[in-house]
């Protein structure tokens, strides 16, 4: 079941659109903001609220890369694997992080602290290599910088 707060936030989005289903992506983002990911149950709840089928909501949810249909860790590390970062050392950086937190791309650490995912170009190529942790952007990465950053996210 969606919480009252979630419903209120989704209805606020619906107001600015000509019809409710336009708020589908907003609704998915709102639920994910509160729960970290979007479960099958949440897909059904959103569909009911917007007056569209479960399948329509799921087709949208599974299309967008920043909507998670599986649980993720408390912190999501997104490492840019696009071409400028590749030239500037993405591969060794990935190996370092992967070894340090003990997971590969797509994995979540057993303590639930980190999920590690690749991300397409983050638009900061003159400062490559780059990554994001949750909503925070980091560039000109080195192994020392990674060590410091990882410590900041519990």
């Amino acid at each position, binding site marked *: 079941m969606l919480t009252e707060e979630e419903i209120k936030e989704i209805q606020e989005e619906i107001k*600015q*659109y*000509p019809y409710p*289903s*336009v*708020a*589908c*992506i*907003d609704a*998915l*983002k709102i639920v994910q903001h509160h729960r970290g990911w979007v479960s099958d149950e949440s897909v059904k709840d959103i569909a009911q609220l917007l007056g569209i089928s479960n399948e329509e909501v799921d*087709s*949208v949810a599974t*299309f*967008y*890369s*920043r*909507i998670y249909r599986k649980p993720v860790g408390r912190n999501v590390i997104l490492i840019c*694997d*696009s*071409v*400028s970062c*590749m*030239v*500037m050392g993405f591969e060794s950086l990935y190996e370092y992080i992967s070894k340090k937190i003990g997971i590969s791309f797509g994995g979540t650490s057993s303590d639930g602290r980190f999920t590690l995912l690749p*991300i*397409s*170009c*983050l*638009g*900061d*190529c*003159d*400062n*490559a290599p780059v990554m*994001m942790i949750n*909503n*925070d*952007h980091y560039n000109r990465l080195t192994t020392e910088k990674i060590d410091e950053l990882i410590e900041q996210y519990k």
Partner: protein
Amino acid sequence: MEKPLTKHIKPGTAPYNLKEYKQAGGYSAVAKALKNIAPGEITNLVKASNLLGRGGAGFPTGVKWSLVPMDGNASKPKYLVCNADEMEPGTFKDRYLLEGNPHQLIEGMIISAYAIQAEKAYIFLRWAYKKAETGLRIAIAEAYNAGYLGNNILGSGFNLNLYVHSSAGRYICGEETALLNSLEGKRAVPRTKPPFPAISGLFGRPTVVNNVETLSWISHIVENGADWFKGLSLTPTGGTKLFGVSGKVRNPGTWELPLGITMRELLEEHAGGMTDGHKFRGALPGGASTDFLIEEHLDVKMDFSTVAAAGSRLGTGTMIILDDKTCPIAFIHNVEKFFALESCGWCTPCREGLPWVEKMLSSIERGTGKMEYLDLLSFNAKYFGPGNTFCAHAPGAAEPLQSGLKYFHDDFVKHISDKKCPWR
């Protein structure tokens, strides 16, 4: 050398707030346009300036606007959408403008919306651009408070509401009709054209979609005129452009420079040349979806028509450099893997061909490729080409592939015959 778009941007400091922006002459073009110039005349002015779209395709902005129905019977509301979904690998110019001067974009959007008589405007923003989002939301609130947005702007009777829509990922959202589907809360698959968005766009209403850099120009053109704009470039096109260089160069970055400077000037004078121990082998001149240019092209002028004449595209104007310490097959594989992953799956050549290409390239890079793959790669590149798909995604993916096969043929053959990557 004039730098109209970036003169008020100081990296590392907060962008101008409304007061500072106004002190620097900001929002005077809005007042001038809304009070003294008819909407159609603004479109004519932009047409006369020959402002070509800065998102990558280079379509004339004024012509795009002139397709919007302007008679009293046109369906309403009309929409203006700013494409701020920058995600072309190797491209980092819109981030600079969005973070550096949000009011310049807002002012450009108000005048552009007035020109096509749009009452609603959206900024479709890449989700990852959090700093830009914060700055834009603050600037929009300031503009509402000062009466530059909302109802009856500056007493002109013109109304405009402006919203920021933060995306949920996927490169295809940058394709203008896919972007419109995404704004409607749907999967971001491209639409059939015609009808063009100018006739039937967002929610079936007349809509113009323009890039951040394009819209950032409008206040300057209104203020200074079409002739001034045309005089800014070294080639006849008109205007400066944000150029960028990334890769193994001494001083990677983005700079506002006149259209028509050479690749060599960009690489050597602005990016500082290659870093020690690295040699230039080639570059994608305008993002991942542009054909390679190599050493013999270094004196090509960076403008839409001149880069096209050299066999590539100006694209976004941000070059990605391939150096001699990077395997060209790995480079091309990386780019094609991106396109395969980001295909929306709507058209067959793109959905089926790109993963096939990705697998063959991966295999060649690992030393398990076969000679016949070279023909199969060319075959796919041909079928990705314009006319076989709804949008420019697969044609874009074909560009680094077909030119890579041509310029790095020997490297492909060596990987296959030696059964290993010489760079590993």
